[in-house]
């Protein structure tokens, strides 16, 4: 146990960097796609028509009670069947991430919109604005304040979640490290590095979100 070889990190740095790039891509797509789909779902859930709000609520409840690993397996298996040809694990993982995280972003956005007092949109409507104008000009800017820190926190969770693409053998940061760990027999060095890198990135974003929340009291 005395013979650690930290040089293995330097020797494999470009491979690890590629892994980190894929992790970043997954976080980016999952967040942007998740926010867009989540926004749509949130609007559906806020509708007064049962036919519209019901399915969205069911979707969110089901997605939130499934483990991400199972959702990744679902899409890994379903995508080739639905499209009729193999699509590769990256495409299926990206779609799985967008649809999975959308359920969580939906709840954040819905809570944000609900945090704006109803009188605000009533007043907006009374001045003659249309419903979507009220949403865009009056409700959303105020909802954003409540949502900001929560979205930052969710991005941290998404970043941690991306490590699960390990189960469909995509080479994200963790999987790249595990490949080298088993190739060179250097599990201790590689997994310690992975833990430290995730710790530094996630902790900085979490602390930034806390700072942001404390600076502007709601």
């Amino acid at each position: 146990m005395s013979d650690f070889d930290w040089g293995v990190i330097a020797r494999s740095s470009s491979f690890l960097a590629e892994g980190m790039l894929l992790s970043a891509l997954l976080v980016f797509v999952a967040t942007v796609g998740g926010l867009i789909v989540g926004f749509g779902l949130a609007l559906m859930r806020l509708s007064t028509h049962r036919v519209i709000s019901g399915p969205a609520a069911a979707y969110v409840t089901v997605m939130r009670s499934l483990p991400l690993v199972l959702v990744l397996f679902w899409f890994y298996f379903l995508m080739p069947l639905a499209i009729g040809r193999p699509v590769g694990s990256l495409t299926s993982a990206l779609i799985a991430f967008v649809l999975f995280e959308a359920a969580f972003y939906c709840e954040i956005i819905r809570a944000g919109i609900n945090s704006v007092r109803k009188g605000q949109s009533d007043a907006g409507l009374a001045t003659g604005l249309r419903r979507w104008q009220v949403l865009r000009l009056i409700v959303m800017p105020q909802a954003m304040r409540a949502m900001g820190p929560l979205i930052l926190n969710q991005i941290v969770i998404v970043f941690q979640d991306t490590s699960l693409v390990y189960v469909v053998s995509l080479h994200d940061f963790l999987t790249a490290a595990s490949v080298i760990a088993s190739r060179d027999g250097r599990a201790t060095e590689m997994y310690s590095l992975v833990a430290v890198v995730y710790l530094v990135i996630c902790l900085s974003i979490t602390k930034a979100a806390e700072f942001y929340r404390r600076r502007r009291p709601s």
Partner: protein
Amino acid sequence: MNYRWDWSVLIREPFVGWLWSGVLLTLAISLMSWAVAVTIGIVVGIARSAPSRTARLLAGIYIDVFRSVPPLVQLFLWYFVFPEVVPDSVGLWLKRDLPYPEIVTAVIAIGLFAGARVAEQVRAGIEAVGAPLLPAALATGLRPLQAFRLIALPLGLRAIVGPLTSEFLITIKLSSLSLTIGVLELTAQSRHVENYTFQGFEAFTFATIGYLVIGLCATGLMRLIDSRIGGAALRKAMA
């Protein structure tokens, strides 16, 4: 879409046996990790609310570190790295003599991660519900430690049973991570059936419904406990 449905894989041996053993293992790992998480969470949560600055700092570091490293990475650290960095005799025992090494490691890893999240809830509960009662408790003549042990802590813990439901659900979902170190729980077994029969729809549907039912039971259980001890009333009174 060209797919041959065959729901009979769900009732045919050996697949039905695989799937049910997966359900049982998921239940066992979830419950054991939850026990670890609640224990750790209460201890660390109390330390986080303690008057001692050192205790608060250590508990804060625990919460920050264990929440910021992805649970899968933590699992790998416990499984692959921990036996290498402890003294040789302990490492050898872990590798050779520990019964059910994968399951025990998964329970510890998931429990410690979820414990950090539970600790935050415990601290919040003591701060919001317990702490405001301390002056009144002290005025009745209780010593500070008694006031904390008899008033602030029990009421703080009662108030958080409701919010802990979502932490319990997260713990159940985390149990699926144990498949990466070879534990054949529900997700792994459904994948296993898919590999054998190519009936992925049926197998994954079984797992999906399994998680939904387990989640509903967990929610119902927590709600029952919450209503028995009057947690909702406590939260409302203090809000």
